[in-house]
Every structure is written in C-alpha cells, then in structure tokens.
C-alpha cells in the first residue's frame, strides 16, 4: 500500500502527498521554480515535470498526487531535455545577464541554468523591453527579469492577503501587449511588507536599500527575533562587515513562517544610526551626561526606594512594552509586584 517506484527504487508515501513531497521525503531532489508552499501556489512553471509510466504527457511533481504503484522517473532523458528547453525559452525571454544582476548567486533561474547546462541563449528576436517600476522608496521591480512565475502574486494575495498585486493572467488577446501579464503592484493597496520581494525567485524584485551593498556570498546570515513587537517574528539579518545590509524572514518556522511586516523587513536603519543611544544617560542640571550601567541602575533604584518610603507602594506603577520579550515582561511584573509591592502593572498591548 502507498508505495511507488521512484527512479527505480521502491518508496513509500503518505496518502495525500504529491510526487514532489514523496520524493523530498526520500532525499530525491526535483527542481522547482514557481512552487510556493505557503500559498499552495504550484503547477505554473512546469520545471518540476517528471515522467510517469503510462501517462501520455509529463506531470508536474508539485501538483500531482503520488499514486500507489506509480513508476516515476524524475530525470529521464526526456524530462531533462524538456526542462532544459524550458529554461532556454525563459532565458531568451528576459534580461538575464547575471553580471549586472543584484540577485547573482541567489537566483533559482541561474542555479537551474547552471545545473542543466544551458549555454549561450540569445535574446528572443522581437523581445520588447518591459517597464521598470521605481515608484517607491523600498522596492524596485524590474520586469525584464521577471519570469512570470506568479509567486509574488500568490505571496501578496494569498499569504499576506493584501491583494495589492492583481492576478495578471488571462487570454493574451484580452491583455495589452508587453505589460499585459506583468505582476504590477497597486500601490494604493501595497503596505510594503516586502513579501513579494522575498517570494521572487529571480532578481526581478529587489530591496532598494540593499542595492549595491553586498553580493550574496559576501554576507553572513544571522538569525534573530524581530525587536518591534511581541509576535516575535524570526528573521535573518544579512550582514557584511558588521553592517546589516538586508533582512528576510526565516521560512518554515513559527510564528511568522517567513512573513515580515514593513518595519521588520525595512526598518533596520536604527541599528547603525549615529544618534542611537549606546550608554545610559543621566540628566544633571538640565543636561544629559553619559554614565555606566551600575551607576544608572543604582540611581533609579534609590529614587524608587525613596518614593516608596515617602508615599507608599501605591505611588509606583509599571508599564511594559510589546517590544520587550515575554520573559522581559514577566520579569517586569515580578519586579513591580515583589520589589515595588504593588499590583499597578500593565502593558501597552492592553490599551
């Protein structure tokens, strides 16, 4: 029950799994380009096609349920040849010159072109230059690099549900030439969460702030928790020379499964801001002076104790922030209840 032959080997699968999922469980790699798990977006690029015995055509592994007794070949000569031809068509229909591309080294198309040995493909005769959308401070959309995989569309409409990239596909005849099928953003609805940028498998969508800052392999990825709110989104800081050059969401982990909001993704300038506080300051005679942690905390503690002694514990209160972690919030209420001796403790998330 529930077993199939994959590249000559018998493997088992869970009912409901696709051929792709079954193959991955058994360590067999099938290339994908359009598949976006979070939005159940699949079946578009057809790069993942495999040969199934008895089928009159190739079947997309990402969208075909594994079937009992199926005989699947993920890399038959026919499959490899058709994948290669598809890649050639893609390269010919865009501006894919990796020398000048920000996504160099971080591009699914580039990786596949390399893997399948695609060589010297000329731009398609009659290729018309597509627009570049430079309208906002955050995101650059160069549709000449777009492969029309629809991932950004699914990311925007089905993952973040902002519905800011209208579904672009439909009969060619009904669409304007050149721009007809492009996933153009509607900036009246866009909240600049950048989910589309993260979903783009090529260099069509880019974080403007990161342009020219670092090549992919020059950065180090540091995992951290977003400091902005209490959700605790997991993020990667892309760091070069101790400078954050870009932020992306960590895929496949809770709580955010790769998603970030505009602040988490783009609001990282403060990290390197020259006017950022780096030591505690104590105000004396109307002016701040730098101080050490021990001195500052000592001062705060002694003043609170004085107030408590003079006016009683009810004259004190604590108010905490969603930008602090759960643990910090817990400690704060502990301090207020046991140290201050009052129940006057609240949190901004309750306002």
């Amino acid at each position, binding site marked *: 029950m529930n077993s199939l032959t994959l590249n000559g080997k018998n493997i088992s699968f869970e009912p409901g799994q696709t051929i792709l999922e079954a193959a991955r469980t058994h360590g067999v790699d099938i290339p994908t380009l359009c598949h976006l798990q979070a939005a159940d977006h699949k079946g578009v690029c057809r790069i993942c096609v495999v040969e199934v015995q008895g089928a009159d055509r190739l079947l997309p592994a990402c969208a075909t349920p594994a079937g009992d007794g199926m005989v699947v070949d993920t890399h038959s000569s026919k499959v490899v040849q058709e994948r290669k031809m598809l890649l050639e068509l893609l390269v010919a229909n865009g501006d894919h010159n990796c020398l000048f591309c920000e996504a160099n080294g971080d591009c699914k198309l580039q990786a596949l072109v390399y893997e399948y040995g695609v060589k010297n493909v000329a731009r398609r005769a009659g290729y018309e230059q597509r627009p570049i959308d430079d309208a906002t401070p955050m995101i650059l959309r160069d549709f000449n690099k777009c492969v029309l995989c629809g991932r950004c569309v699914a990311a925007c409409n089905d993952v973040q549900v902002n519905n800011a990239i209208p579904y672009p596909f439909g009969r060619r005849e009904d669409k304007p030439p050149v721009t*007809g099928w492009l996933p153009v953003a509607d900036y009246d609805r866009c909240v600049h969460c950048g989910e589309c940028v993260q979903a783009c498998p090529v260099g069509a969508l880019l974080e403007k702030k990161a342009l020219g800052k670092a090549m992919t392999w020059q950065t180090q990825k540091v995992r951290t928790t977003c400091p902005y709110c209490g959700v605790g989104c997991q993020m990667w800081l892309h760091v070069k020379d101790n400078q954050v050059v870009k932020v992306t969401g960590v895929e496949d982990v809770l709580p955010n499964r790769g998603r970030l909001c505009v602040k988490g993704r783009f609001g990282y300038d403060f990290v390197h801001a020259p006017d950022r506080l780096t030591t505690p300051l104590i105000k004396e005679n109307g002016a701040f002076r730098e101080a050490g942690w021990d001195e500052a905390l000592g001062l705060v503690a002694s003043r609170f104790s004085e107030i408590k002694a003079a006016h009683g514990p009810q004259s004190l209160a604590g108010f905490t922030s969603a930008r602090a972690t759960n643990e910090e919030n817990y400690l704060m209420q502990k301090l207020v209840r046991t140290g201050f001796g009052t129940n006057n403790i609240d949190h901004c998330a309750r306002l």
Partner: protein
Amino acid sequence: MTSQTFSTWGRWVAGREQVPPDKLPSEFSKDQPLKAFMGWDGLFVHDTAVNLVDMARAYMEQARQESCGQCFPCRLGTEDMSAILEGICAGKGTPSDLDRLESLARLVTDTARCDIGQTAPRPLLDLLQYRREDFLNIIKSKTPIPAGHYVTKVTAPCTNACPSHLNIPGYVEKIRIGRWDQALSTIRNDCCLPGVVGRVCVRPCEFNCRRQRLDSGIAIRALKRYAADMELESGQEPPLQPGPAKDKKVAIIGAGPAGLSCAYYLGLKGYQSTIFEALNEPGGMAAVGIPDYRLPREILRGEANQVKKLGCEIRYGVNVGVDITLDDLKLQGYSAIFVGVGAPEASKMRCEGEDAGYQCFMTGVEFLRRVAYGERPVEGKKILVIGGGNVAMDCVRSALRLGFTDVNLIYRRTRAEMPADPVEITEAQEEGVKFNYLVAPLRIVAKDGKVAGLECQRMELGEPDASGRRRPVVVEGANFIIECDAIVPAIGQICVVDCVLPPEEVEITKWKTMVADDITFRTNQPYIFSGGDCVTGPATLIAALAAGKNAARFIEQFLTTGQSVPEESDYMERLISRLGVYYFKEKMPYADSTTKLHPPVMEPEVRVNSFEEVEGVVNSASATKEASRCLRCYRIAMAAV
C-alpha cells in the same frame, strides 16, 4: 481528391482509434461544405485545396491568443511556434524550422498546465508527421502563401454541454482568483439570471465535467450561485447598462425565462421591449412551478428587475390572444415579436376519472401554481402524486410543507429509471416521502364527488423501449386500491400555442408547439420569433434562457438588415457539438481523490416545516477551493469552409 483526404482525428485522446474522414462531418452549413477541421484531437481534411500549412499557422495564432500566460511552456511555446509558422508562410522559413517546431510542439503538449497548451499543438504535430512535404515545399519556394479564411471557436466539455454555452472554465477561474464580480460578468454574457440558474439548473455541464474522469466533477452550479450571492451580499448594483437607444421596439409574449432573456439581451443592445404577461408575476414556471424552498421568489424578482432596468416594460395580467392580438401589437408599432409562452398545461394520464372534476384531484402544474400563490389547494392528510420527474418531486415536497402527513409518490418503473434529479429524490426521501415503484394508476375512486382513493395496477419491467429504459408491463390480476384524500398527477406538460397565435398565420405542430428555426428562432413569419418550452416542449430553464439570448441576436439582425441568417459561429457551435467534446472514456494520466463541493443544506426535520430555502450559502474559502479543482479543459476548434 478523395485519395488525398486524410484524418488524424481521434488519435490523441487516449484509447481511441483514428476516425476515417468519411465518418466525420463534411457539411458546415446547408451551402458550405466543411473543407478541413483542426482541433484538440487532431485534424481532418475533406478538400485538398486547403493549404494546411496556412491553416496550422492560423490555428497556432489562435492558440497564442488563447494562452493565459500562467504556465511557462504554453506562454513561451505558442509565441515561438506562432512566429516560426508566420515566417514559413511569409516565405522566410528554413528546413531547420521544422525540427524546432516539432520540439516546441512536443514540449508544450507534454508539459503545459491546461488543455489549451496540451491540445493546441496536436494538429501541428500530426501535420509534421504526415505532411512534412507541404511545409518543405513552401520553404523551398521562398514565396509567401495567401492567408485563408477560417472559423474558430473555443469550447470545453462543460461549455459544450450547456445549452447556452457559458464560458464555465472562465468564470470558475475568476472565482478561484477571488473576483466574483468578474465571474458574474462572464456568466451574464450567456445567462441573465445567475442567481436563479445558480440554484435550480439541471446542470448538464456537471454531467459533462472532465474532472469526473479524475475524481469528482466541479460544482459548477453552486459556484454560479456563490457569485450571485456575493453580489447580493455586497449590496452592489450589477454593472449593467442599456446600449445606445434604438428607435425600434420589440413585443415579447410571456415573462418566463425565455422572454426575460430575450428582453435582457435586446436591452443590452439598446432595444426597448414590452413583455405581455398573463400572470401578475415574472418568471413563468420558475415562479409558479419551481417551489420557493428551491428558488426563493425574491431572487427571481430581483433578477427580473435587472431586466427591467435595461429598458424593458412588463405589462402584467395581459392574456395575449384574449386581451390583445398579434395584429394589435403590430399596429402598436412593434417591429418584431418574440413568443415565449411555455408549456403550461398538464399532460393526461389516461386514467379513468381524471376529467370528472372530482374535488381534491388537481394536476401538478395547477397544484404548484396555487401553492406559489400561497394557497393550500387540496385538503386532507394523505396525498398521492403520480410521476417520476422533477415536477413530481416538487409536488411531493410541497405537499409535505403544506402539512400532508402521508405523502406518497406513485411511479410505474423503478428508481433506476426515474428521470428526476438524484439530489431531489434523496432529499424527498430524507423528508419522509414514501416511494411506490412499479405502480400505475388505473381509476380514480371517488365518493360524493371527492377523491377517496386510486385503483392501481402492479407493474414489472419488460424489454427496453426506444428511450433505452425498460418498459413497464402490467402484472395481470394484481390490481389494488390505495385510499387517499388527494391525487396530483405530475407526468408532464404540454403546449397550447394555438390559444395565443392564430394558426393560420404562424406554423405550429400537431403538439401545439411553435415551429421555429433551431439556430435563429425565427418562425415562418419573418418578424415573429419564438423560443423556450413553447418550441421544444417542457425543457429547462437554461435552454429557455439560451433561446431568448440567441433570438435577441437574430431579432437585432432582422431589425437592422431585414434578415435573420445564422452566423458562421452558430454553424461552428453545431459542428463542435456533433463532434463531441467530452470523452466519457478518456483515460487520465494519474488518479486524484478530491471531492466535489456540497453546499450546506437545512436538516430534513427543520426544512419540511416551511418553504424556506433548503440549500445554504457557500463561503468564499470553499468556493475558491472548489474553483481551483477546475482543469481548464479549453479546446480550440478551427474550420476551413
């Protein structure tokens, strides 16, 4: 010439033999032979004068236009194949083009997502295999070849099965992407009562949905209703605009589905119309036949109101033939007339006593009509309904809702032969209707002029009859009497158009139906058109809507040119239907196990207590999920004539 005709038709859809050319249609219209045909299953050629290379170019160009851009091979491949074929036909081809064409065509059929991409390169592949010289000759000659004239049509198995040929994959896809508004405008191109049809259509499309070959078909009707429900819920007015006003006006007899549809599509073109309706309510049988628990009246009234907004006036309580004649209408300045008077009378059972005028004996259509007006037309506790169709189901289920506690259906064959919709049968059973199979009525037993019982014959199934169903035969000596308070026969309706129109002016059949052209809906009088049940005999809502829609087109043609002649696309539609688009035996390359969406229904114990709508609302998440199951089985047909 005959030696050169050839066919590859039938070789592609798995498991079929190629059909020889002489077994394939060779007539396009009365006066146009079908010279060649290209489509989803190959091509066939009757006339060797057709330049197949040019036809392949035109076919691929159409495929390129139909490509939706979603999947890579079709988007990029149709573009390239089309360009290469353009080049060859312009005399600029090279022999290596053919290899390139072949590998592109292979790639696209092998890997595309839907049937546009999977089927469109097939005729080209066939030509490259069997008629490569045709290409090489043109390439060698280096001279451009003239472009021929072809008729094209895009269809799908579901679309072809629908009498009004709705673009089903089109609207289903709009629902998938969350655009119910766009879905509705696609629906309204071919069906002006989406909320009505979305509730009660007999859905031939669903029985021809190709997804059934994979697991279970698409809930096409429920998705239509979903789109209509969303519009209602949004409170938005449908974006409907009457066309630029025309000076000619049209009279329509009957505000049933056929009449409303005719008025709607005339209105979109800017023609004012007046509907003369005998009742005081729009909708015909949809209003006074179909009970409210299946189709709430306010839905029907709301959608009929939209028709009025397009420039149509409905005059209620006017019985044409009695209150006003056709001649009067002509004198009043109507330039054309559409007759959509339906099939209002009940067929006879040929059962003793049915014409005796007994109390509590009433035909099904009359019973439902009076129920629709809020009456309780027959009295008692135990009722017998005779028949096995949908009207009989409506009668038994209505009887339960009127308070009859013992509701019995009498049918002379068995459940397997029952023509009623299986869903209706199941729901009636759930509600407590008792089904008596293999029983036929013989004589009504009356007491003091009132129904007291029904003498019946026991039947058994014999040999199959012309319809393929086994013929019921009487079991001798097994008659019996069922006591009851009321009897409602519901075995069919008949037309009585002779009451409306003077037969000396308009041709009618001996069944008292109108005679009208099956494409143009024109009668033997050039200015009188007719469609719906009054032409076909009792049929379906969507067939009546289709008739009204198409008649409107030919009425417009008549009003602008004085003629009404079919267009090439009409003949094309007919040709496609003759070829068949849904292959019951198609073998799918894999198996799937998704299930069809079933809209929520009210519990049987609750729903029998009122005429409240049984079926509930489908939420957006389920609708989107259902829509994403559609395989987009679009197919392109092209004829050289």
